[in-house]
């Protein structure tokens, strides 16, 4: 992989909350059009990495680089200059804004805006922040909502939707921002079991389409089908990483084996 082909490069990311160290020098590379799944027990630091990639946490040390290349292999989203945030120095609000312009997040609890309709939720960022023409944004939003089967719900409020529908709106809201990098924070763990598949199907489709994504998940079967690489974390370090089939089927490290065994037993 040539460095220019990399959408995301994370180097030496470290973060403590008080006396509690959650990240101890994490490296991560995501090539264009690839999907990386972060797995690991709760408290392993995987969500903190993801949040750092959207500036929702500011690491104490290390750097994050989002390359100039596109977030999909087809490159439909606007190209932005390469950006590096160096957390060893103080990062400015401007740099954080630039990072957020490049990455978009889908939250575990959807975090839709309850006082806005589905359509308003989707177009708020592109219209208010990115200042793009409203008519154009609405047309794109409608097309995205059709894709996930929620066009009829465009004028509904979030409380009128099921959890699975809300999460699909959450995904559309992220896509509408035309990011280079899509981040998913346990996108199905707040859902009733029968609603999980619809959401996973949408994410799988985006992966097949060539979006560059980082997904924190507990769904091992989904990770195996969707992710190109699986990264297993524990105690703030990467314990094992490799192709999805290898890490999930034939893990080398004992901690990985234990974790996967425990997760499979729960089912």
């Amino acid at each position, binding site marked *: 992989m040539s460095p220019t082909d990399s959408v995301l490069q994370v180097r030496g990311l470290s973060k403590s909350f008080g006396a509690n160290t959650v990240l101890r020098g994490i490296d991560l590379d995501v090539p264009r059009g690839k999907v990386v799944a972060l797995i690991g027990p709760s408290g392993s630091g995987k969500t903190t990495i993801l949040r750092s990639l*959207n*500036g*929702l946490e500011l690491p104490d040390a290390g750097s994050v680089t989002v390359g100039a290349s596109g977030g999909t292999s087809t490159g439909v989203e606007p190209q932005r200059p390469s950006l590096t945030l160096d957390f060893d120095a103080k990062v400015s*609000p401007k740099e954080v*804004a630039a990072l*957020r*312009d490049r990455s*978009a*997040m889908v*939250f575990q*609890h959807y*975090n*839709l*805006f*309850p*006082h*806005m309709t589905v359509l308003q939720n989707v177009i*708020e*960022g592109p219209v*208010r*922040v*990115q200042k793009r023409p409203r008519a154009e944004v609405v047309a794109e939003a409608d097309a995205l909502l059709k894709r996930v089967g929620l066009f009829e719900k465009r004028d509904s*409020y*979030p*409380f009128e939707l099921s959890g699975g529908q809300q999460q699909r709106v959450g995904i559309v*809201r*992220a896509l509408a*921002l035309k990011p280079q990098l899509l981040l998913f924070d346990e996108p199905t763990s707040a859902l009733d079991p029968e609603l999980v598949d619809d959401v996973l199907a949408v994410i799988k489709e985006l992966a097949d389409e060539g979006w560059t994504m980082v997904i924190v998940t507990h769904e091992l079967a989904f990770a195996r089908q969707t992710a190109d690489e699986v990264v297993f974390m524990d105690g703030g370090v990467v314990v094992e990483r490799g192709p999805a089939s290898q890490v999930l089927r034939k893990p080398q490290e004992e901690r990985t084996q234990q974790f996967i065994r425990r997760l499979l037993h729960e089912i």
Partner: protein
Amino acid sequence: MDFDLFWSSLGPLLLGAVKGTIPLALASFALGLLIALLVAVMRISTSKLANGVGRVYVSLIRGTPLLVQLFVIFYGLPAVGVKIDPWPSAIIAFSLNVGGYAAEVIRAAILSVPQGQWEAGHMIGMSRNQTLLRIILPQAARVSVPPLSNTFISLVKDTSLASLILVTEMFRVAQQVAAFSQEFMLLYLEAAMIYWVICLALSTAQTRVEKRLDRYVAH
């Protein structure tokens, strides 16, 4: 009971309400809300200074009687060379007072909005102020309508205190007619009745606003 006096004084009293009580309450409430919003934002800011100033302000307003605040501004300030007319004095005192109480209401309402809403606002690229205005405050508004209605209803009745600094509002009219006719019971009950009717109307308005803001939550 002297019904002739009741009817003949009703006109002047209502005029006092329309030209005094109601505009005084409306102006003070509007200004008070602006002050409250500013103080609430100071109280949730990370700046220790802003936070401290906000805290002292709220403490002073809530810790001293409204009548004393009114007298300090109208009768006290001239001693240090600041002479303010009755109407502006009343509006300043009432809006500062509302500002202190409503600031705490608004602060609590802002804090009641889940942290995830701030994060979602930031995720789509909004600054802190944009998120506050577009995402947080509309949701905080819903929670703060009942307590802010209380504040407004109290304010309407508190405007009667302005009669003591020579503002011609409804209660001052009632006092004048009562002094002239010596019918104290009649005039003060009549004034009480008008306050009550105004507050009933406000309660109805409150219900409507609540219904409107509730349209986006599950029932």
